[in-house]
Structure formats: C-alpha cells, structure tokens
C-alpha cells in the first residue's frame, strides 16, 4: 500500500485521511517501514492504542526508535497472525490489566511463533513487547524464556543465558547454605 504524503498538508485533512485508513505505518530504529492493521495494533498494544486515539500516528511512519527492524517485523507478524486467529474473549480481557491477570498458556500458534526465534531475536522481541505495552506478546515471550530455565541448575542456567556468576565467594556460600535444598548437584 502506498504511504500517504502527510507532511505539509493541512492538519485537518491529514487527520481525516488517517481516520480513513485501516492500517498504521511503523518505523523501526534503522528506518524500515512496516504496516499493521490499526484494529490489531490498537487491540494488542496499549501504547499504539494510545497513539492512535491521540492522533499521534505519522502516516510517513511512526518512529519507534527503541525497536530494531527484526523485532518490529516480529511484532507486526504477531499482530497479523493474531488478527487472523480467532481471539477468545478470555484473551482480550487478559490484555487489559498489566501483570496481574493469571497467566494463560500460549496457544499452539503462539508457541510456534516464539519457538522459531533465535535467543537474540526472542530477547529483542520481549523488550519490544514491553515497550509497546503488548501484554499478551510479553506473556508469550516471557513464558518461552521461563521454559528455558525449567529443571536447570544455576550453572546450567548461566550457560544457557551466558550469565557471568558475579557473586563473591562469601555471597555464593551464603546462598548455597540457605538454598542448598533447591540446587541440583552442580
């Protein structure tokens, strides 16, 4: 779809034109443009919903300087897939309040969606979801990352996530004594 030349035109005309469109254009930190259904964006992202309602959507591409093109492509892909899937009523209601609703297991397509991502892409996507206030996408990506910790010893988790053990010897000993019960023999 051709992107309207909004700049230079009267503000009123632009707003009317914008209201008529059923997509919004998003611009990644590296300048790539992505189109996403306005309805899905407003429903899945509290931040985009606020921008759409407040008229701060730029037809030439709304700048999302914090999000790289790969992560934004995944965000848009998720919105499109979500728009195609039949959203359950429960899913919609869970996207209203932040972080307090009980977690709902990912659906099959959501699982597949995050499973194909590399670690880097997954971590970028979780941050993008957090930035855009996409409750459900945040849940699905956080769930995927939490699965990577399951049943692993602290050493194994450090290995998977490339984390440096930055405790002093004394701190480590203190933790070991208090939490020895939960440690696998590592």
């Amino acid at each position: 779809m051709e992107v309207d030349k909004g700049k230079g035109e009267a503000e009123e005309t632009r707003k009317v034109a914008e209201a008529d469109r059923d997509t919004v254009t998003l611009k990644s930190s590296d300048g790539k443009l992505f189109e996403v259904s306005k309805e899905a964006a407003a429903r899945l992202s509290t931040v985009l919903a606020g921008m759409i309602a407040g008229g701060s959507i730029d037809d030439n591409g709304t700048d999302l300087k914090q999000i790289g093109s790969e992560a934004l492509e995944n965000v848009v892909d998720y919105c499109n897939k979500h728009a195609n899937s039949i959203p359950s009523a429960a899913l919609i209601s869970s996207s209203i309040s932040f972080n307090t609703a009980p977690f709902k297991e990912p659906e099959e397509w959501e699982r597949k969606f995050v499973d194909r991502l590399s670690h880097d892409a997954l971590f970028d996507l979780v941050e993008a979801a957090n930035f855009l206030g996409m409750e459900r996408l945040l849940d699905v990506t956080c769930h995927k990352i939490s699965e990577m910790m399951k049943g692993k010893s602290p050493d194994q988790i450090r290995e998977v996530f490339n984390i440096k053990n930055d405790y002093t010897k004394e701190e480590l000993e203190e933790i070991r004594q208090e939490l020895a019960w939960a440690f696998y023999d590592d």
Partner: protein
Amino acid sequence: MSLRCLCRLVLRALPKIFALTLSFRKALQTGGHVHSPVIEAAVLGTELPELPVDILVNILALLEIPDLVRAGSVCSSWNAAYTSLRSLGMYRRPQTPCLLYTSESDGDNVACLYSLAEKRVYKLTLPEPPIRSRSELHITNPITGEQIALPSVTTIEQVKPIFDDAGAIQKYEFSQYFGNEVINDPSIHSLDKLRDHLYVKASVFSDPSTKSYIVVLIHNPICQLSFRAGLMVRRLASVS
C-alpha cells in the same frame, strides 16, 4: 495435629508464606535497568543482552518455586529481580501442588517436598525443635526455614503443665471439660503425645492489615475453636 492436617495446611499456605517472607539476603542491587556490564559483551556476540529487571520479574513470575529459587541465584541482577518478585508476591501462575511429608528414616529435622511438576523430592531442613517431639505449635515456612512460635499449648484452658523438680515442663494434664460439663477424667500426656489427643485441625489465614497470620485451631474436647494470633488466645465458640 495429625501430619495430614499439617501437610494440607502448609501446602495451602505455601505460596503465600513464601511470597510474604523477607528476602533471604540483602538486595544486592536496587531496581532499574541493569545493562552496563553486558552491553559490550553483547556487541562482541558472546553474550545475550541482559534483560531489564521488570521483564525479568515477569519471566520469574511464571516459574515453579524450585525453578524460581535456582534462577534467582544465578547472578546479582537476577537475584534483585527474584527479591523484588518475592516482596511483591505477584506470581502469575498457580504452583503445581507439592506433597510435604516427613519420614522417620530421614531424621526429625528433615521435611520432604515432592514436586509433582518435576517428579522429584527436595529435602528441606526444618528449624528446631524437632517436629515430632512437641505439642507446641509453630507456623513454619519449610522453604526458608523461618518459623513463628504460636502461643503455648498451656494457654488453652484445659491444658496444665506438670513441672519436674528443676522447673521444666515434664508432662501435660489435659482436663476434658466443656463449660460446666465434665466429659472425662483428666488425663496425663507426655510432651510429644498431647497433640494426638488435643488437636483436631488448624487453618492459617494471613492478615494483611497487620502483616501477620491468624491460626484457627479446632481442638478437643468436643472440637472447640481457638483463634491464635500474636500473643492473644481467645476461645470463641464450640463447633460440634
């Protein structure tokens, strides 16, 4: 109190107790984004970018408690996320039930926590005094070993201590009356046996207004109800 009652009671309260207890160590790092040391490494392609603490809290909130404890101990920034999650107590998922039990072969100070999710047993060290040797009640968090002693059993009006020559409690005298009605003759019980005759059931409730717990105790004779919170013991009514 029967072991089964204790198990049920502890299990029902476990996530809450766990959530409300103080951190197992000083918070190593205050909140906010903890990027700095890892960004260079990420550029070099050797490490994943470090997650902001708020996202990490969201992730940890989806774990079973044993996984959470392990994940919370991998480094100081994860520990900070773990500590704030615990103080907030905002778990997003119901915990898979665990079976808590003791067995004579493991010794008096060991409780076994069987995780249904992982199909494995964790052995927890319980604080003193040994669980089997007493009739005094405690609220114990088996995960952290924290323990609150409830008002002494001798504050129940039917229970009187019998002291030895040195002034230590040797046995209990249990008078079986209710109001003016005597049900049975008083009986004498050793320190570890009174509970078998006295306790029927106990339930724990948290009291957010005072950040403490209230224990409602059903005890003999004829299933009387006591409320135990702090130092206050009050018999309310009888249930039959």
